[in-house]
């Protein structure tokens, strides 16, 4: 009987000490965001004796419980994934806005319109003609520059997407490795808890890059599919211990197409989805910029063709080229600007043809107006995306806070636990003392 008392006190002291160790572990990891707080699972240990029925044997350490809620994890992952998409898209769009606003296409067009109007005041003045020609050259350069900066913005997003793809493959391989270890891990061990921490951290890192749907098997190993539009789950990115290769191919217009293990997918969340949609937008703005440029070329050349230049010769094309990248000034001298209507003699001060060019450039559907529409469309889209992003950031922040609340370490709780467990240890030690006293008393009987 006294042996049993020793056994009970010893098991109690051991359980208290193990709990104190776990509490110390929790405190040490208080600032580790991937750490889910642990607690010790214990249960009463009752032995069975043939002669006396049940025998009390103290407490049994059942294992280490890792505080975890799959749903909260999943919410945190998917909201962070949405936020990463919005961030990546917004950053790509902002680069585009910078490219189109800083290249000052609109100001270039207005300046061209202004010098043409000025020329109307004094059509034969050589200085004004030269100024008009140089402003037109500047406008062509501005459009070339806008094309270049837009290309740079696109290259930046493409580079970022390349890094994202590498990151996705690295995380998928890491997850497969963790899955293999998890299958072999013993339930309730500290090792298993550490692996689950690593699994959740990898899943969160993966979700930032690409939106995924996750399922777990009995051992906690995660299988991952790419989330697609309308809740469709796409190809398996990680199938237990086997990762598939995620790949991106660049299309002719600069947009990206994705495959997992060779079959096509269209991710809807994560940085890669934001980068893909930013590239789509950039391809659209590139088209619009090219359309504005070819419209400008067509209008300027059409006006030249219906006029006569300062020497009375038929007007020659103003610009060559078909897009923002290829536009170039075709005229070589200010005298070649066809200010007068066709058929006018040399030195005519008639500005009828010039007036129709000015009207054509400044028309409601002319290049000045369409450039303003382009910029307005882009900045409105960014403004809306920014608002969406703010909302998503709040949601993601909440989900993150909820996750931390569920899984994180509360130092006050741990401090209280520390006091409680210390008392438990002391009490068990006291029981040992009592058992020893009883034993001594029994030995001292004569």
């Amino acid at each position, binding site marked *: 009987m006294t042996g049993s008392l020793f056994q009970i006190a010893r098991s109690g002291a051991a359980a208290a000490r193990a709990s104190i160790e776990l509490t110390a572990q929790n405190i040490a990891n*208080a*600032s580790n*965001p991937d750490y889910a*707080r642990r*607690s010790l*699972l214990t249960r009463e240990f009752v032995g069975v004796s043939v002669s006396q029925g049940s025998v009390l044997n103290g407490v049994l350490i059942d294992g280490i419980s890792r*505080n975890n*809620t799959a749903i909260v994890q999943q919410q945190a992952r998917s909201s962070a994934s949405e936020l990463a998409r919005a961030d990546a898209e917004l950053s790509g769009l*902002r680069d585009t*806005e*910078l490219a189109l*606003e800083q290249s000052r296409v*609109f*100001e270039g067009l*207005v*300046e061209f*319109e*202004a*010098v043409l*109007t*000025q020329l*109307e*005041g*004094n059509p*034969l*003045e050589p200085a004004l003609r030269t100024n008009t020609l140089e402003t037109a050259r500047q406008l062509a350069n501005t459009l070339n520059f806008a094309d270049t900066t837009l290309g740079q913005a696109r290259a930046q997003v493409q580079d970022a997407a390349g890094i994202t793809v590498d990151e996705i493959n690295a995380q998928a391989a890491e997850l497969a490795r963790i899955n293999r270890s998890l299958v072999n891990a013993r339930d309730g061990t500290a090792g298993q808890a550490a692996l689950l921490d690593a699994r959740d951290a990898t899943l969160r890192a993966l979700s930032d890059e690409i939106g995924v749907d996750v399922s777990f098997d009995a051992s906690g190993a995660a299988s991952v599919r790419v989330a697609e539009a309308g809740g469709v789950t796409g190809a398996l990115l990680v199938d237990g211990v086997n990762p598939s290769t995620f790949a991106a191919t660049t299309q002719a217009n600069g947009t990206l197409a994705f495959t997992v293990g060779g079959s096509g997918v269209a991710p809807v969340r994560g940085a890669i989805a934001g980068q893909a949609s930013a590239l789509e937008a950039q391809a659209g703005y590139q088209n619009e910029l090219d359309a504005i440029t070819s419209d400008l070329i067509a209008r300027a050349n059409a006006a030249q063709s219906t006029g006569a230049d300062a020497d009375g010769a038929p007007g020659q094309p103003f610009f060559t080229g078909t897009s923002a990248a290829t536009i170039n000034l075709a005229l070589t001298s200010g005298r070649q600007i066809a200010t*007068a209507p066709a058929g006018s*003699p*040399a*030195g*005519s*001060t*008639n*500005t009828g043809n010039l*007036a129709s060019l*000015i009207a054509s450039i400044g028309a409601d559907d002319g290049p*000045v107006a369409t450039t*303003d529409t382009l*910029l*307005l469309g*882009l*900045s*409105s889209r*960014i403004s809306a995306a*920014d608002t969406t992003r703010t909302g998503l950031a709040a949601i993601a*922040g909440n989900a*993150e806070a909820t996750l*931390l*609340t*569920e*899984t*994180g*370490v*509360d*130092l*006050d*709780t741990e*401090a*209280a636990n*520390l006091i409680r467990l210390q008392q438990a240890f002391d009490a068990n030690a006291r029981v040992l003392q009592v058992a020893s006293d009883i034993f001594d008393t029994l030995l001292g009987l004569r």
Partner: protein
Amino acid sequence: MSFVSNATGAFYERSLSQMSGLRSSLETLQTQISTGTRIERGSDDPAAASRLRTLSRTERLAEVQADNADKLARDLTEAGDEVLGVANLLSRARELAIRAANDPVGEAGRAAIAEELAQLELELFDRANATTLTGEPLFAGTASGPAFVRAGDGSVSYNGNSEISSVTVAPGTELERGVTGLQIFEFNVNGTPTNAFAVLSGLAAALQPGVADPAAAARAALDGLDAAIDTTTRSQTVLGTRLAWVEVIQESQQDRALDVAEQQSNLGDTDIGEAIARLQQTLTALEASQSSFTRVANLTLFNAL
């Protein structure tokens, strides 16, 4: 074994995001105050940015249109001066014609009058070929050469054309540059087309010694001179009216420029008073949350152990 705890990490995370939010709005306000502009890039306020673009276009075009209006006003003033000179000259010719017709001036006197008329005709020719400050003929329409040319026999004919081109001086407002030589110097006398030069040189020729009945010729020339003066006066009125119109437009352009500047300021400039008040408010909030953060962060049971 799931219970809700007040995780230490969550507290730090929350405090950090709140304080960095305050800090970022402080920085935005700071930028708005130091740059004086409310809109750094289009996406800050898409509609206002588009409006500002339109205003900057209006402003730039208005500058050029104001230049055009100045140039037009100068040209019209010069043309007006020349036409005024022509009118004075024709009145003088009329006086001379009346004197030649009525006064017993004698042959020598008529010869002197003829000499003066010939001089007046030369001056008229010069005035008709006057150019702008930049060298274009004032009265040749849109043609480049001199407005009037003198043939070998001394007769003067119009060399320009009847086109008058317009110039944009305000949004949607085009004004004609002036009047052609045809409108000032060419007219019909008794159904016959003629010009002021022919009238003057014809009269000068009729007053030469040896020509029969110079007084009758002088009386006959009065009809031509009256028609010439009428035509010139009409052109003077046209030029004067047009100049007045340009001046009205110039005034309204100045008003519009002020209006544009005011709208630009309203749309794009920082309201300093409001921005500073907001800055102060945000600063107070940030300071308060910083000090409460340090106090709360210091509250831990470990202090009591």
